């Protein structure tokens, strides 16, 4: 089975600070990382490969420093990586991103071998739209299942997937080729291993494609190909925590204390009213 996994190179949002004087984001000196929610998708692909054989190819549309992230994913055991990078791809919204990714996947199918399955993470930590996967599936006209927690191979042409939702579980049999996104924390990603890292480094397993390779219309990619308009951004001020610690005698006592706190707090009282109505 040939599995493509999409991974995004994102700023480490944990480390992005807001300048107290200007109110703008400080990104200087903040190293990017592989979107953490994409690693379970990589893990899912590796587990599938271990069972049915084949190849795992990681794809990322990103600027050149993302090579560092691709090295990490290759270090986990992926077979190769394709970095799709070009100045004209910069500034893409989800539409333009998914367009480029879907064309890269088609190119992999044509030049490396038929792609059976495309896996994605659930969302990114820097934009978290969860749009890219569905859009890629639409461009490719393949079926799409999201928030999947496990995948079982079913012969050569299908997989059985499970989705764990809040109140129930679902199971689907999906014919290949297909696009599947993996739920956050569905699988624990394996660490980088010495042998995989060594292999990746010695055999130079990262391929770079620019628009000279993909030959896409510059009007359909990057900023120019992005119809999304940002109407307004709003800063959410940090709410200072009250840091109260209460040591209850028992759970009842704890519950009483919490309810009392909620009723005493003006803002919380409003929220509570919205939930339980005026009887509060």
């Amino acid at each position, binding site marked *: 089975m040939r599995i493509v996994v999409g991974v995004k190179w994102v700023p*480490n949002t*944990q*480390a992005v*600070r807001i300048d107290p004087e200007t109110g703008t984001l400080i990104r200087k*000196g*903040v*190293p990017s*990382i592989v979107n953490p929610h994409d690693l379970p998708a990589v893990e899912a692909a590796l587990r599938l490969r271990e069972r049915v054989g084949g190849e795992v190819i990681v794809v990322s549309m990103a600027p050149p420093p993302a090579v560092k992230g691709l090295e*990490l994913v290759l*270090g*986990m055991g992926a077979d190769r990586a394709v970095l799709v990078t070009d100045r004209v791809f910069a500034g893409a919204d989800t539409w333009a991103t998914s367009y480029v990714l879907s064309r890269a996947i088609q190119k992999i199918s044509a030049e490396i071998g038929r792609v059976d399955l495309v896996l994605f993470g659930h969302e990114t930590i820097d934009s978290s739209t969860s749009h890219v996967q569905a859009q890629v599936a639409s461009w490719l006209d393949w079926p799409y299942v999201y928030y999947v927690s496990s995948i079982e191979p079913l012969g050569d042409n299908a997989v059985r997937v499970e989705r764990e939702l809040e109140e129930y579980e679902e199971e689907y049999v999906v014919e290949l080729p297909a696009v599947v996104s993996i739920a956050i*924390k569905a699988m*624990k*990603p394996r*660490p*980088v291993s010495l042998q995989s890292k060594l292999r990746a480094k010695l055999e130079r397993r990262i391929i770079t494609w620019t628009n000279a390779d993909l030959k896409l219309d510059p009007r359909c990619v990057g900023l120019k190909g992005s119809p999304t308009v940002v109407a307004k951004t709003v800063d959410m001020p940090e709410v200072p925590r009250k840091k109260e610690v209460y*040591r209850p005698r028992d759970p009842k006592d704890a519950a009483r204390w919490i309810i009392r706190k909620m009723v005493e707090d003006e803002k919380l009282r409003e929220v509570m009213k919205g939930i339980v109505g005026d009887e509060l």
Partner: protein
Amino acid sequence: MSQAPSRLKVMKLEELLRRDVWDVDEERHIEVLKQEGLPLKALQLLCPMGCYSMAGERLLMSYEGCVECGTCRVLSKPEQIRWEFPRSGRGIQYRYT
């Protein structure tokens, strides 16, 4: 005494921690195995990142802010604290130090 500019106000540890970059591992790399005999106050005051704190009588260890300096390691015995490095290059990412 003269009024100090705002940048010269003493910063809390939490504020200092916001200056740093980690790629936090989901796997815990340091774990208290046996609290008995550990220098509790020393761990709380000396761990530069404040990873150790007390919840009532219990010593809590939050590995997320650890900079892998080894101080709690030399203050303990192998049977008291399991101490390993994070894998895959995770953990603290120093830049200007």
